[in-house]
């Protein structure tokens, strides 16, 4: 068997060089050059000389009984090496992030369109595809559960009749077995407060199913090993959670399943669940050949979970002065066919349901359903996005009812450090919500009618590219109305509700060729966010060296936890800092001993030397550690954030979150009110990041998150019919923002340190995805006067003759 030509040597070969950069610098990416030359090895680029191509046969039905599978025609195709069905599974048949309810291959029932049914390995991908099409599967279609009414009806088909997950153990906490999880939050006395309220507004809102739409498709290469195990090169967000699910499915001891991170083309939550990992490994182990699986875009829409669509009913009551007295909220999330991370999404939606506002009395209920719709799970913002769209719409509605400025109403009710969340958790770090709003509001507004300009002799000319509709030349500015909208959101950072959230870093300091070199090894999934850059910056800062080598992420080092929940700079950055500090202490101890000092008190590492507090050089690192690996100091240590608590099952009370992050947006839009076209002119943001470890990477996160929120506001939805089938699984029909859809995005970054966090930093990645959606929709509402209770806002919502259809009761019932 050939040796894989070190595929990840080309993803994270990161001798970052002397250009370097420390904490607080906009250091360049160590993988930047490889990415612009085309050499960076993404998971879909891997190649092995005798590899086979795997392909997945998927269910065409959203809910059906599997009566039989005949693979003989597929096996007879020349070039086909292997066909697998559920009967061939060697060990565990199910997996899952929180609840092991997802079949590796369907056995007697399929619960969503696109569920994997059989696998083919062949010499050529087209051979595998064609062979898969020859597999005969006999189905008997079953009634489809597609919303709350059909899921919880008395005669509803129970989708997981054997479920025995933690939600159902002991007490039946959910009202129906088609409810995955339910979390109430109760604080104060909302009934009494309702009686006192002078102004009450209510509304029902809907959020469509958004797709992460990372560009690098699900893919990887599984290589069978001589010890009977398997090496998997994979694009994922968390190597160790993949590993934990894979080993039982493969029937292998954990040490025989080794994962290495291949290049990852974006993630945004869609790589938290397994996709092709188990399938490629099963085919490789069965055939004894390396197997590569690469989804195309169509398959990708079926190959990962999406953002939960939601229906949210809210009632806000306030005093005449605008003080919030109470909120009632009910949030129904569609989890689709399998649990994925639905319970945690429910916890977020419930605990963050009221937004960054002080609300003394509240009754919230959030739940997620099992349906026959596509499975939903993690996407950037994770339950907080849906709530933010609804509570910010409510704040605007309340401001209108009170005849108040919507920003002033928000500032009046904004949380600050010391405020209580509805869970009873006191915010014990800066929470500059009012200040963030002030900053976006005070920014000068962009000029009106940007398509008009004066020619050299004063005549007016029109640049249609600056109009709603742009180059489609749909108009010249007739009927275009400007609107401005604001929103602010709150997102938790890190894993919550008592989860033992930790990361691990191994750091080695040695002298090589006379130069001190730090080597950092973690299992952190670099998915584009720039964690590898930050780790090198931290090592340089803590160890006073310039040369840092970042080793490829793999399962030979302890878990880094997931690249999600805005947590990696906090957690794996924190782990790198922590290990570096212990390595430094050992180096300084050795230096003190060598120098005959009583202890290392006051000694530092700087410029490759041991120096005193005053900067006087006492010894070169080469003198303390010697040349080569013999004198190296190496440690592998775990790092944890402060513990959290589960939310009480009935009241939702508890210290559930590690940290909160806040972002505010102001959106400026031009709306062609005759054609229903929207052009977002500017999307300004202000965010507190605690400490910007890499300011340029921070801006990249805020820009990228804001753009994804814009997409949800006006473009992006996976359209699912009542038959549970996806109508638009392509980039032709599922629209993500292009550079023409995305406006100028000025950003104001605050750095108010959170003393609980490494360097005072605050997770950055998700907060901007929350508030940009409601800000854009608020701006469209201001321009059009329409209620717009559903995202994405479509042209027909803006030109429909009957605005009442989109009024306070929410959008019209969705049809097919």
């Amino acid at each position, binding site marked *: 068997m050939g040796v894989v030509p070190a595929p990840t040597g080309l993803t994270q070969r990161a001798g970052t060089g002397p250009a370097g950069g420390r904490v607080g610098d906009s250091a360049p990416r160590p993988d930047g050059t490889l990415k*612009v*030359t085309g050499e960076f090895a993404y998971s*879909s680029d891997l190649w092995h000389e005798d590899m086979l191509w795997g392909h997945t046969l998927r269910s065409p039905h959203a809910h059906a009984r599997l009566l039989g599978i005949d693979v003989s025609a597929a096996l007879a195709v020349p070039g086909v090496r292997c066909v697998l069905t559920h009967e061939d599974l060697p060990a565990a048949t199910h997996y899952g992030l929180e609840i092991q309810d997802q079949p590796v291959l369907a056995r007697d029932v399929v619960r969503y369109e696109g569920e994997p049914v059989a696998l083919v390995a062949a010499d050529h991908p087209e051979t595998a595809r064609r062979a898969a099409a020859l597999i005969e599967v006999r189905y008997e279609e079953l009634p489809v559960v597609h919303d709350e009414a059909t899921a919880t009806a008395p005669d509803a088909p129970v989708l997981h009749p054997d479920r025995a997950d933690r939600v159902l153990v002991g007490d039946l906490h959910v009202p129906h077995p088609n409810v995955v999880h339910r979390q109430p939050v109760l604080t104060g006395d909302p009934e009494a407060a309702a009686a006192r309220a002078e102004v009450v507004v209510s509304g029902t809102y809907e959020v469509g199913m958004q797709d992460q739409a990372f560009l690098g498709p699900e893919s990887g290469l599984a290589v069978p090993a001589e010890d009977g195990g398997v090496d998997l090169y994979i694009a994922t967000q968390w190597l160790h959670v993949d590993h934990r699910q894979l080993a039982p499915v493969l029937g292998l001891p954990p040490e025989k399943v080794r994962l290495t991170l291949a290049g990852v083309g974006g993630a945004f939550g869609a790589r938290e669940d397994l996709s092709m990992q188990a399938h490629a490994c099963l085919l490789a182990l069965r055939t004894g050949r390396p197997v590569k699986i690469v989804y195309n875009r169509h398959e990708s829409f079926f190959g990962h979970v999406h953002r939960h669509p939601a229906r949210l009913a809210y009632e806000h009551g306030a005093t005449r002065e605008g003080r919030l007295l109470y909120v009632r909220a009910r949030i129904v999330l569609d989890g689709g066919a399998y649990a994925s991370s639905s319970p945690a999404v429910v916890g977020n939606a419930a605990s963050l349901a009221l937004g960054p506002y002080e609300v003394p009395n509240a009754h919230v209920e959030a739940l997620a359903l099992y349906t026959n719709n596509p499975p939903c799970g993690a996407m950037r913002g994770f339950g907080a996005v849906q709530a933010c769209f609804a509570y910010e719409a409510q704040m605007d509605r309340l401001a209108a009812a009170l005849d108040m400025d919507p920003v002033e109403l928000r500032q009046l009710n904004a949380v600050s450090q010391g405020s209580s969340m509805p869970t009873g958790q006191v915010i014990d770090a800066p929470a500059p919500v009012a200040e963030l709003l002030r900053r976006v509001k005070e920014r000068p507004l962009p000029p009106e009618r940007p398509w008009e300009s004066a020619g050299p002799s004063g005549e007016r000319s029109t640049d249609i590219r600056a109009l709603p509709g742009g180059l489609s030349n749909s108009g010249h500015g007739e009927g275009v109305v400007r609107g401005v909208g604001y929103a602010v959101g709150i997102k938790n950072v890190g894993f919550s509700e008592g989860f033992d959230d930790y990361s691990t870093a191994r750091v080695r300091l040695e002298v090589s060729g006379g130069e001190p070199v730090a080597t950092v090894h973690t299992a952190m999934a670099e998915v584009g966010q720039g964690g590898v850059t930050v780790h090198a910056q931290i090592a340089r800062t803590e160890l006073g060296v310039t040369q840092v080598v970042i080793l490829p992420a793999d399962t030979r080092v302890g878990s880094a936890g997931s690249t999600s929940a805005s947590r990696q700079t906090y957690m794996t950055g924190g782990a790198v800092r922590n290990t570096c500090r212990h390595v430094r202490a050992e180096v300084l101890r050795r230096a003190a001993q060598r120098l005959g000092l009583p202890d290392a008190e006051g000694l530092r590492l700087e410029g490759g030397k041991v120096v005193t507090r005053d900067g006087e050089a006492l010894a070169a690192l080469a003198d303390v550690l010697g040349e080569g690996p013999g004198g190296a100091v190496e440690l592998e240590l775990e790092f944890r954030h402060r513990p959290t608590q589960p939310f009480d099952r009935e009241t939702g009370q508890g210290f559930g979150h590690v940290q909160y992050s806040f972002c505010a947006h102001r959106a400026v839009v031009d709306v062609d009110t005759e054609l229903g076209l929207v052009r977002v002119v500017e999307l300004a943001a202000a965010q507190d990041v605690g400490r910007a470890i890499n300011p340029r990477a921070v*801006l990249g996160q805020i820009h990228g998150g804001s753009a994804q929120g814009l997409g949800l506001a006006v473009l992006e939805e996976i359209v699912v019919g009542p038959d549970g089938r996806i109508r638009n699984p392509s980039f032709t029909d599922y629209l993500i923002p292009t550079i023409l859809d995305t406006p100028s995005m000025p950003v104001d970054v605050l750095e108010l340190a959170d003393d609980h966090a490494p360097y005072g930093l605050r997770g950055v990645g998700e907060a901007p995805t929350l508030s940009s959606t409601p800000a854009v929709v608020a701006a469209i509402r201001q321009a059009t006067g329409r209620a717009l209770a559903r995202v994405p806002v479509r042209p027909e919502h803006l030109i429909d003759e009957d605005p009442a259809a989109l009024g306070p009761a929410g959008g019209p019932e969705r049809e097919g």
Partner: protein
Amino acid sequence: MRVNLTVNGRPRTADDVWEGESLLFVLRERLGLPGSKNACEQGECGSCTVRLDGDLVCACLVAAGQAEGREVETVEGLAAREGGETRLGPVQQAFVDAGAVQCGFCTPGLLMAADDLLARNPHPADADIREALSGNLCRCTGYEAILDAVRLAAARTSGTA
């Protein structure tokens, strides 16, 4: 079938090509040039953008046989190789310097489109840049740093930076 083509100035031959294969597949899987990316394989995302006889195309929409006898330029051809050293092209260097690369999957296609723009229009206005790059999807950056990178490359190549 056999396909003969010139890639980044070098004559190349691909054997055993199935007639249904795209130019993208041949580049990536048969010629060892995976720099052109496979994000949608339906001509919507631009991540497989290459030049075919000087014109920008989505390599996923070009049948391998259509490339017979023609010249293809890919992202792998943008940098100069001198000895063992790689000297990045101006657009490549600007993408690195401006922070226009996050996950990087869209980057090869955007580099080809931006390089083509600057060859045609050395002093593009922002609206020109947006128009030229509108066929290339990026999911990470929100495009702000990409605009910065193209502005930077334009300024550097015209000697104003």
